[in-house]
């Protein structure tokens, strides 16, 4: 069966049971079992950021804290940190995305993933993330309208 997908205008967000979203940072977090969480920028985030030109990530093995930077990006419309949706340690970082940051734009849920976190407080960290098809749709529609009103989605 195909995974549920929330589509709001030109933005698509997978909404299967394993997907969670940080409501301010617009990162996705995908549960991969045994406390492992794969993380990336959502299609909404990469639309807001524009063409991503540079990605920097902490090396694998480093500890990360929810809400604190585990890396940074430089893009056409955004320069700033990538804030972790979970506390734990970086099990892996995506060397291909470091080499080719455009993957974050062209394949945000696939080859453009950023890191895998070995989460230590997973149920606590998931509590404030957006989850479930209806909740994701409501949230992303509100965000989309807000970004349009503020002129952050120009074209």
């Amino acid at each position, binding site marked *: 069966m195909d995974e549920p997908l929330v589509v709001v205008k030109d933005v698509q967000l997978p909404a299967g049971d394993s997907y969670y979203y940080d409501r301010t940072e617009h990162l996705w977090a995908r549960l991969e079992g045994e406390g492992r969480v794969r993380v990336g920028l959502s299609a909404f985030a990469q639309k807001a950021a524009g063409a991503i030109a540079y990605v920097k990530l902490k090396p694998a093995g480093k500890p990360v804290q929810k809400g604190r930077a585990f890396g940074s990006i430089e893009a056409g419309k955004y320069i700033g940190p990538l804030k972790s949706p979970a506390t734990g340690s970086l099990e892996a970082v995506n060397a291909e995305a470091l080499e080719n940051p455009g993957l974050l734009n062209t394949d945000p849920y696939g080859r453009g993933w950023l890191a895998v976190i070995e989460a230590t407080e997973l149920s606590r960290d998931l509590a404030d993330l957006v989850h479930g098809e209806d909740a994701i749709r409501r949230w992303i529609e509100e965000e989309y309208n807000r970004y349009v009103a503020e*002129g952050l989605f120009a074209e």
Partner: protein
Amino acid sequence: MPSEPGPARPVVFSAPGIKRYAARDFTPCNPESFRPVSLTGARCALSCAHCEGKLLRAMVPARPSLLDACARLARAGTRGVLITGGCDRKGRVPLAGLGEELRRVRDSLGLSVAVHTGLLDRAAAEELAQAGVERAMLDLIGARETAREVYHLEAGPEDYEASLAALVDSGVPTLPHIVLGLHYGALKGERAALEMVRRHRVAGLVLVVLTPLPGTPMASVAPPPIGEVEEFFHLARRSLPELPVWLGCARPCGPARRAIDRAALRAGLDGIAFPAEGIVARARASGREVVLSDACCGFVGAPGTDR
């Protein structure tokens, strides 16, 4: 390598709303403070080799009208706008005839107004002056080959200097920009452009560095070497000792950006837009007074923009 200058001149770090920006030692108070508005949406008749209109896509389109777009921004907290857009076949941003609307953006909406002009004649410059435009920005091209091969425009340095003169003589505070490495990464007409700046009473000079954009003919072009960039920074500083000289928004990413920002500090430039991580701290450590601003560099010092 030259040492960093003494603490005599303050350095201004600015982060206008042209990009969202956050760094450990500098996060702007109002990320929507200063926004670019494109009069042409993503359209540009020149389709320059370094951009092909891609920079325009990140801007707010002036729809359904310039005034409507600016009113929306004002309601969202914007305090200033850069009115820009793609050029026509003669290298002009289509500002002609918008004087009254520009005045209303400033007077009715209370927004600071800067414009990117492209080439323009005296009548157009006077219209901007009468509209009360507070800053005009103009990319100066100092080599005819660069205008032809990058901008696809039959224009020479004399045309750019005539536009600069028209703005300055009309009384519009003018901030020329020089793009280092615009000629496919090579420095070609930059010194000639700097000489133009020396001949006119401009409000300041903004230096930017070619940033190869994905999906353009210059995507794989190497930006100019950091040594040449730094040398030009020092030349600009020596040539214009009293004039504010800023490092503007555009420059390559990552380690190259940090290297360019450090070079700007060493050369004693007066400001850096969107400084790389650690640069604010570096300036403080060198003893220079640091000013943080949400404003576009041309508006630094305007009420409520500095802290």
